[in-house]
């Protein structure tokens, strides 16, 4: 029901603004780079030490010394730069990156996010996610509204160990665009064909619905 992963990325791309530096997490967020709106310039930062990240290399030119934070072979655009990990996180911690887009297992109505650990299961680590969510002013989460069992991931309180506290500003799911403020989820847009009632039902956290909720335009 609702948006595909590609469409979630497409909707998030509408949030990009001219002259923003953007860090895209692994998964759906990475796809956002395919939908940059016309007429704006953004630069993608990869926290392993790359600014001005370009598309995948042409077959045969891939280089083990040129990867992104997802360990995929990538390229650097003209005007890009390479640097060490301390400088990279100086950019992130110092709020030089205007937008972070990342995935989540759970988001809470106070802006908490959980996306790195499921107790009892294998723990792979937080990578750069804790630095990113503790630092960025704009944090958009790309995620499915519910888990495979149909349970809401848009919660009153996170049940999983947190990645960051009170930091998420917006959530784009397969069902809706939600703004996180004043301790609640504010419904901004519906996915095409999805009703407000369906969103309400899939949302465990407090959902504020004000006025007529428009359908997303993709």
């Amino acid at each position, binding site marked *: 029901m609702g948006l595909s992963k590609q469409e979630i990325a497409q909707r998030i791309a509408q949030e990009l603004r001219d002259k923003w530096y953007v860090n895209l997490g692994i998964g759906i967020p990475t796809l956002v780079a395919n939908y940059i709106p016309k007429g704006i310039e953004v630069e993608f930062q990869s926290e392993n030490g790359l600014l001005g990240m370009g598309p995948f290399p042409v077959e045969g030119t891939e280089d083990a010394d040129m990867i992104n934070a997802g360990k995929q072979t990538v390229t650097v655009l003209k005007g890009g730069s390479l640097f060490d990990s301390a400088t990279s996180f100086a950019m992130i911690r110092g709020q030089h990156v205007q937008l972070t887009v990342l995935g989540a297992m759970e988001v809470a109505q106070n802006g908490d996010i959980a996306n790195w650990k499921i107790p009892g299961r294998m723990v792979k680590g937080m990578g750069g996610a804790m630095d990113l969510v503790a630092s960025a002013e704009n944090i958009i989460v790309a995620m499915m509204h519910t888990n495979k069992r149909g349970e809401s991931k848009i919660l009153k309180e996170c049940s999983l160990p947190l990645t*960051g506290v009170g930091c998420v500003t917006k959530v784009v799911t397969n069902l809706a665009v939600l703004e996180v403020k004043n301790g609640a989820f504010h419904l901004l847009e519906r996915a095409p064909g999805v009703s407000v009632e369906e969103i309400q039902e899939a949302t465990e956290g407090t959902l504020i619905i004000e006025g007529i909720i428009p359908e997303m335009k993709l």
Partner: protein
Amino acid sequence: MINKVVENAEKALLGVTDGMTFMLGGFGLSGIPENSISELVKLGVKELTCISNNAGVDDFGLGLLLQKRQIKKMISSYVGENDEFERQMLSGELEVDLIPQGTLAERCRATGAGIPAFYTPAGYGTEVAEGKETREFKGKMYVLEHAFEPEFAFVKAWKGDTAGNLIFKGTARNFNPMMAMAGKITVAEVEELVAVGELDPNQIHTPGIFVQRIFQGTAYEKRIEQRTVTPKS
């Protein structure tokens, strides 16, 4: 100029013993000290604490040391992609300290820069901050993080000169420069060892002062973890 050249990995690792704490450069499999890792496997030193952003894959990088059960504790930010790691961790054979990537990078730099501790926002309010000092600065909460104490740092550079100056290539730079600063003894292996005067002093990434031993590496595999390409049109 002070000459830092040693003949090979064997000479470069002189003094490495069981129970030591090491830093190892690299992000994923990019920029890892392949020769030094091979030599550590050969030496068979055990009970090691390894500070490295990742833990390699089963049959490459730090995975090779894990296979031989040489590592007692890993300090990393992300350790997926490694079945043997998972097995040892879940069975309790391996201690794992997971810390945010930026905190890891900054702690490495602090170690080399004589900064014993600093405040960072990363991890505040999470289990990473449990038992740590926290403090408010200008309305925002931060966690106090400390420097490390590694005995050796193993780094890999693209080019290096006999005085120990290093230049890295692409994203293979990653943690290498800060770890080079941090090692009590820093061992640099390079793809190309050149004479002094061949590197532009204005373009050195790691000044030679941070490097105690340098050697010409051999047989680099430089494995790619996720080969993603654009088809030829």
